[in-house]
């Protein structure tokens, strides 16, 4: 276990730094050109982004760090390792905060990058949309529960990347709604996986089955989290995803094929995860499982309560775009 943990740390650190060091240099040269790095001033005094090799490299340098953070499908190798090896608090912060930093970075930097984004965002769009389907399919074959949730993170963030690259108002709204919704949902799923891990000391999906019989209330949280993850109405996950799918359809009609099948695959693996952990026959090797703690239920309520309340007033997370 030790070796994989150290490996995961190394992968995480080096993937992040390979993206962020060119970002540092790109930002320093941005400051050199405009005179300031204040976002207000940059909006008013945009740098010239012409179709030269230098400016193309500059465009990639400014965006790659955030793509690695999100993570984009081709650069996502650090995420399953990091999530699987991290303790629960680390996984929660990683899923709910760190990934969204990448999304926030893309939203903040995109206005500076026109007009090159019209042509150069295509590779990232392709990778993001293809990643939605690919990582969703990988989820169906996972044996490790945390790894499944990690790949589902990549899948949802792929939608966010595709949306933020189109730079429309609906896309931005959908992106930040989905980021907040996914942050809460993913963190809650990791907490639920941790309750299993604390009792069985294993992340294997098939090990803790038919939990509904043993922990009925916990299975309620499992149900709510899984329903939110597959974007059931009226959750904010659905609001985010639907807004993104609509804006992507507006950008190009063909994306509906990928986003639609992505939605179906998401529902499939979420139901797979739910049914494997909650239903099925009780395994014969489960003798004693300690009861649930109040702190675990409190943790789940603290996740599901904002999600439920935001259903009533989603304007709070729609941002200033529309």
């Amino acid at each position, binding site marked *: 276990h030790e070796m994989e943990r*150290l490996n995961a740390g190394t992968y995480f*650190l080096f993937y992040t730094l390979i993206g962020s060091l060119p970002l*540092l240099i790109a930002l320093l040269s941005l400051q*050199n050109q405009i005179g300031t790095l204040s976002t207000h001033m940059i909006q008013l005094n945009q740098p010239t982004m012409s179709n030269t090799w230098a400016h193309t490299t500059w465009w990639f340098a400014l965006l790659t760090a955030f793509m690695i953070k999100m993570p984009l499908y081709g650069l996502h190798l650090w995420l399953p390792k990091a999530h699987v090896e991290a303790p629960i608090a680390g996984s929660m912060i990683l899923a709910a905060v760190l990934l969204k930093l990448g999304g926030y970075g893309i939203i903040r930097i995109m206005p500076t990058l026109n007009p090159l984004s019209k042509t150069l965002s295509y590779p990232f769009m392709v990778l993001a949309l293809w990643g939605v389907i690919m990582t969703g399919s990988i989820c169906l074959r996972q044996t490790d529960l945390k790894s499944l949730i990690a790949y589902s993170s990549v899948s949802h963030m792929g939608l966010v990347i595709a949306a933020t690259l189109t730079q429309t108002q609906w896309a931005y709204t959908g992106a930040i709604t989905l980021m907040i919704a996914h942050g809460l949902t993913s963190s809650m799923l990791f907490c639920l996986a941790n309750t299993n891990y604390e009792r069985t000391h294993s992340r294997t999906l098939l090990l803790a089955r038919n939990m509904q019989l043993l922990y009925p209330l916990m299975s309620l949280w499992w149900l709510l989290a899984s329903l939110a993850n597959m974007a059931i109405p009226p959750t904010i996950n659905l609001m985010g995803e639907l807004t993104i799918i609509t804006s992507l359809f507006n950008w190009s009609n063909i994306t509906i094929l990928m986003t639609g099948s992505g939605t179906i695959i998401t529902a499939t693996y979420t139901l797979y995860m739910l049914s494997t952990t909650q239903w099925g026959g009780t395994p014969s090797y489960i003798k004693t499982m300690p009861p649930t703690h109040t702190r675990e239920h409190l943790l789940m309520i603290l996740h599901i309560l904002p999600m439920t309340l935001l259903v009533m007033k989603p304007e709070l997370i729609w941002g200033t775009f529309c």
Partner: protein
Amino acid sequence: MNPYASMIITSSLIMGPLLTVSSNHWILAWTGLEISTLAIIPLIAKQHHPRAIEAATKYFLTQATASTLILFSSIMNAWTLGQWDITQMSNNTSCIVLTTALAIKLGLAPFHFWLPEVLQGTTTMTALILTTWQKLAPLSLLVMTSQSLNTPLMLALGLTSALTGGWYGLNQTQLRKIMASSSIAHLGWMTTILTLSPKLTLLTFYTYTIMTSTTFLMIKTLETNMMSVMMTSWTKLPTLNTMMMLTLMSLAGLPPLTGFMPKWLILQELTKQHMFIMATAMALISLLSLFFYLRISYYTTITLPPNSTNYLQQWRHKTNKKPYLAMMTMLSVTLLPITPTLLTIP
């Protein structure tokens, strides 16, 4: 050591670089370099171990050759220009020869081959003096002549040194050789920015000195010299072990620690001069050194019980704590927020 000998050696060691730093005449600068070389030879060879003798011999040969070349370049300059002023080094050939000589003295690539073996052959404290104090004199000569030096040559030396330092350390398990490769890499960063902003060279040198001294003192206190004893060093002084990880990450140049400051300022200066490829190359190459610093910090700090250690315990001697180590650790880890103040240091 005999107190008379010790007094002579220590005073010569202190006086040598100070003489070089404060001189305007080439002969006096060369004299200071020779004094510092001669004074440290007995310190390197003190152990009477064959490896120490070999290290002393290698050090003497390389430094003497470099000093001869410095003398030659200054004589050439004096012959063509008629004056011995260090800052008026206008003859191009003598600048090139001087750069080569100082590269040999400092241990820049491709003249770095002596540094790991010399550092490995000496004791920890002598290695500390070799990497910090002995670099002062040649670096001050570089800074004094920086306006006449050839920028592409400096950039090439800097890039190859960073590459060599990064790659050399990847295969090492001995901590002194790792510190040697760290020295090569950091000197690479210093020479990169030399002709563009000598002030940043000096700032990098000061922060490098503090961080390296801290690391060497920690190595001395924990008595860990190789990877095989690092895994059980946390038992001696647990807090120091944690600080060792922070100091190593500071050497690697990770924000928000001090070591990020010189790298950030150098990258900023390079970008202002539109040397983007150089800046990106230097930044990404420092990731090589980051890997072995990270590996050391894994072995010392991150793999702790209840995980099983793969190595045997060491004999426990009386841990000699150094009281100034705490202050130096604080300096080597927390100086980043006061960067504007540090930029005012000439």
